[in-house]
């Protein structure tokens, strides 16, 4: 079964479910609030992306926020309070990359019954936005992870 047999909304729901599990256990935030589901990718945000690849399709998922939001997520992952330590841009990229990596693993487990043999890529961090092409489908969940306004993104080729 290709990933295109599953709707973008299903992928977003899976990401939100994974983030709901990850936020309290790994980031120390109690809740994840979904503010809006939409299609248009944000501009002016930074974040981490990772590919989920099967034999016949591929999908990118991302976690983006304002620079301050990315820093807060990174500090939270490392169990630090804001202001406790100044993180380098590399530390922030590494940490947000690790968050999306964990999310991707959780989504892969959730989707294992629907899609066979999905492999994960390695996370990348982008300071800037992704411009989807015309034939690409996108989905965005605007969320609040603890105090951080962030967006969960899904991008894939349209059928």
């Amino acid at each position, binding site marked *: 079964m290709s990933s295109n047999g599953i709707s973008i909304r299903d992928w977003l729901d899976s990401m939100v479910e994974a983030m709901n*599990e*990850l936020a309290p*256990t*790994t980031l120390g935030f109690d809740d994840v609030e979904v503010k809006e589901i939409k299609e248009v990718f944000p501009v002016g945000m930074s974040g981490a992306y990772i590919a989920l690849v099967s034999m016949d399709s591929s999908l990118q998922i991302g976690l983006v926020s304002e620079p301050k939001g990315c820093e807060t997520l*990174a500090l939270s*992952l*490392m*169990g630090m309070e804001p202001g406790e330590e100044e993180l380098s841009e590399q*530390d922030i990229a*590494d*940490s947000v*990359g*690790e968050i999306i*990596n*964990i999310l*991707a*693993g*959780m989504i*892969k*487990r959730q989707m*294992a019954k629907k899609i066979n043999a999905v492999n*994960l890529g*390695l996370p990348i961090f982008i300071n800037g936005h992704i411009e989807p092409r015309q034939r690409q489908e996108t989905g965005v969940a605007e969320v609040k992870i603890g105090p951080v306004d962030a967006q969960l993104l899904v991008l894939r080729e349209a059928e």
Partner: protein
Amino acid sequence: MKILIVDDSKAMRMIVKRTLRQAGLGDHEVIEAGNGAEALNAISASKPDVVLCDWNMPEMNGIELLEKLNENGKKVKFGFVTSEGTPEMREKAKGAGALFFISKPFTADTFQEALNPVIS
């Protein structure tokens, strides 16, 4: 006892160290490697007792590292700490001799449950 943590993410290596402390295993010496190739060198040079290894890494991934250790006849207690964890991967890891398989996200309890039998 010496524990080798292998993960390409510095943040995750820090989290694994913190979780070891929270699990009451903080008294052991901890060394680190950023991928499987670095870990091979670290295992030869430092002879750790236990290896906690990520699966998905650049250069040499975790299962390739374990297979290489088997090929070279290196005996070390080995387990995975990874964001993945499908039944197929667990089976493959077990078949290659992994003693435990911890999926991220994890807690100190998860570490205790997986590591206490191995360390004791």
